[in-house]
């Protein structure tokens, strides 16, 4: 009797149980990710300005929003800024994260303090962190300038107001904030590496550098894939510090894609154009993530 029941349930279970188990996630993804995406794609073919009475009702205008985007100098500037921002912050954060992880992976006295120090920026809310950094970047007596002066540097001082430095300034904050977070994943990865491999390598006379580069790094490939994926997504999605530090300025010099999207949607109240921007953002993110995944899988094969 009981055997029969069990076998029945075992046969039936695969039919619904997995779906039931993933359904909460699935529903959340469908409602909060998939559906808005579909909606954004749809709305990107319409003209809708919330702040113009006659254009409040959406009108179909085909690809005009996309045409407007790609002919707008502002948008091209934003794409350029975003490219610099992502290419500048992602590799730097990953390399730093890896170095931090190597540094704190050793069982030295007081290493807990170093770990805390590296991880600390992560638990600080971005808005508070950005506010603190704003004071660091203050011209004349800011900590950052004072720090650079100890190296004999007396260059441009007005970090956030200078069009050539504002983007760099927000990038520095992003790297500082992210590296500690990404370090956690490398640290976890490093601590899971099999000891015997390294022992064997040592016996064979492999240098520290060789061990690191030929053994540890390849073994951490999956971690790197994961870390780079979230780092890239973060780079596109975290713009809180830009709100606090530069408001995208001066003259749009530190405006990146998501900040621009916010401006178009919530300041200009231009729903159609904001939807087109959303679609562009989604396409960029999807292609980067997929490429990243495919490339690293191929390497592994």
């Amino acid at each position: 009797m009981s055997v029969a029941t069990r076998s029945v349930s075992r046969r039936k279970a695969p039919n619904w149980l997995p779906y039931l188990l993933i359904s909460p996630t699935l529903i959340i993804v469908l409602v909060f990710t998939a559906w808005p995406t579909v909606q954004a794609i749809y709305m990107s073919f319409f003209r809708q300005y919330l702040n113009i009475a006659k254009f409040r009702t959406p009108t179909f205008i085909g690809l005009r929003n996309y045409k407007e985007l790609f002919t707008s100098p502002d948008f091209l500037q934003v794409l350029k800024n975003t490219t610099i921002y992502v290419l500048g912050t992602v590799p730097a954060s990953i390399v730093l994260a890896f170095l931090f992880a190597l540094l704190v992976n050793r069982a030295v006295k007081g290493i807990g303090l170093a770990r805390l120090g590296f991880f600390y920026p992560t638990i600080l809310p971005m808005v508070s962190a950005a506010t603190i950094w704003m004071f660091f970047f203050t011209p004349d007596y800011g900590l950052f300038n004072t720090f650079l002066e100890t190296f004999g540097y007396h260059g441009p001082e007005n970090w956030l107001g200078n069009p050539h430095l504002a983007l760099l300034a927000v990038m520095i904050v992003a790297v500082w904030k992210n590296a500690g977070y990404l370090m956690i994943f490398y640290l976890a990865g490093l601590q899971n590496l099999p000891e015997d491999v390294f022992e064997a390598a040592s016996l064979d006379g492999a240098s520290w550098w060789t061990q690191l580069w030929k053994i540890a790094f390849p073994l951490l490939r999956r971690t790197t894939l994961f870390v780079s994926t979230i780092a890239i997504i973060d780079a596109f999605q975290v713009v809180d510090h830009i709100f606090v530090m530069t408001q995208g300025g001066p003259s749009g010099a530190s405006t990146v894609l998501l900040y621009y999207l916010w401006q178009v949607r919530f300041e200009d109240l231009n729903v159609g154009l904001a939807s087109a921007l959303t679609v562009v953002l989604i396409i960029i993110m999807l292609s980067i993530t997929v490429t990243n995944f495919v490339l690293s899988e191929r390497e592994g094969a």
Partner: protein
Amino acid sequence: MSHNRKAFVIVSLLLALSMVLAACGAKPTPTAAPATKAPAATQAPAATQAPKPTEAPKPTQAPAKPVTIEVYYPVAVDAPIAKILNGYIADFEKQNPNIKVKPVFSGGYGDVKTTIQTTIEGGGKPPVLAVMLAADLYDLVNAGYIVPLDDFIKSMPNGDAYINDFFPAFMANSKYDGKIWSIPFQRSVVTLYYNADLFEQEGIKPPDSWESLAEAAQKLTIPGKRWGIEWPSGWPYWLFQPLAIGNGQNIVKSPTEVVFDDPKVIEAVQFYIDLSHKYHAMPEGVQKNWGNAPADFAKGAAAMIVHSSGSLRGILSQAKFKVGVMAVPGKKPGTYATVTGGGNFYMLKGASPEEQQAAWKFIEFVTQPKYAADFSIKTGYIATRKSAYDTPEMKEYIQKVPQAGQLKDMLKYAGAELSCMNLGKVRNIFHKYLQAAYNGQMTPEEAMKKAQQEADKALEMFK
């Protein structure tokens, strides 16, 4: 849930009781009932202070059913706004036992507006009241988020007098399409703060023209130690406006017309740049020092700053010297200019008539001279109504802090804050090119011409 129900039962019981009482007592006199827990809905509270001559008795007709209204509210200055407002709400609820006011403190001005937008567009119910930027008027009307307030004003026994008691400069951004859309609440003006001790020491008179301003700034600059003047420009239109107005040409003309490329505006941009490039009295380029400027001034690292009047309290509490306040000098000797800023009460669409009535009552209550004065004293905002300056509290305060009275007197030089259709876009365009000029990426003339072109395009659809 059960808590709510219990509250509802209690309130209903109180209501029923009040009816019985009202039926028993022939004519309830205001002083008859105890002030606390006054059950009668038609009861005015026992006034603890002498009634203000300028204030008419408030209509005491409370809604029959208990009403809860939400007020969304930003905190934009360094003052315990939440605590202050909660105090007013407690007073209000004591007088209006049937109305519950739920304040929702939601970040800065931008956050309040974004939250409300998202709520409305997501099909939710927005709060009945919100404090948003006075300059946001046109976008809010066009988006159909807010309701005009004329009917409520007309329903007052002295509606015209009520409105006329607000300083006209503060009402400038409330009227559109023949209607009144907002009631001034937390308002400020651009202020030139100067170190009066330092001026005296150096034998300099407070400036009364661009030239004397620049000379004073130059004279007071000690390279590497002290700037003659700091003039933040990270979010530049507001602090720039007094320069344009002081040269006889405001940058906004009508809801669909902005004036960026007028020679007088260009000259104003040039003057700002000259302060650093010609007189070397101000940091070069775009100054991201809105947060630091008051502290720099208070500790003597800047002899003058241009900032919000709302920073007065903070500056006075830190500065160890005599602080002077004045409007920004205009180009011609003896002329001055400033511009208003800050937030007004707006009533949002989607509320029931009862809720709207309750919300209006709250606006009336909290803008009374007594509260307007108290709010000004506690926060540093300028009291919105003339009669607030006749209250004994305010008179006493101004005796202690004469600067507060001087700020009010600056209102006569105030021009209208940049407010127009498509404000977000137009303002961003102006910022972009103004900063480009400040940073020397373009000449003032090039920059303002480009700004005008793009702004005209952004306003075209609204004509």
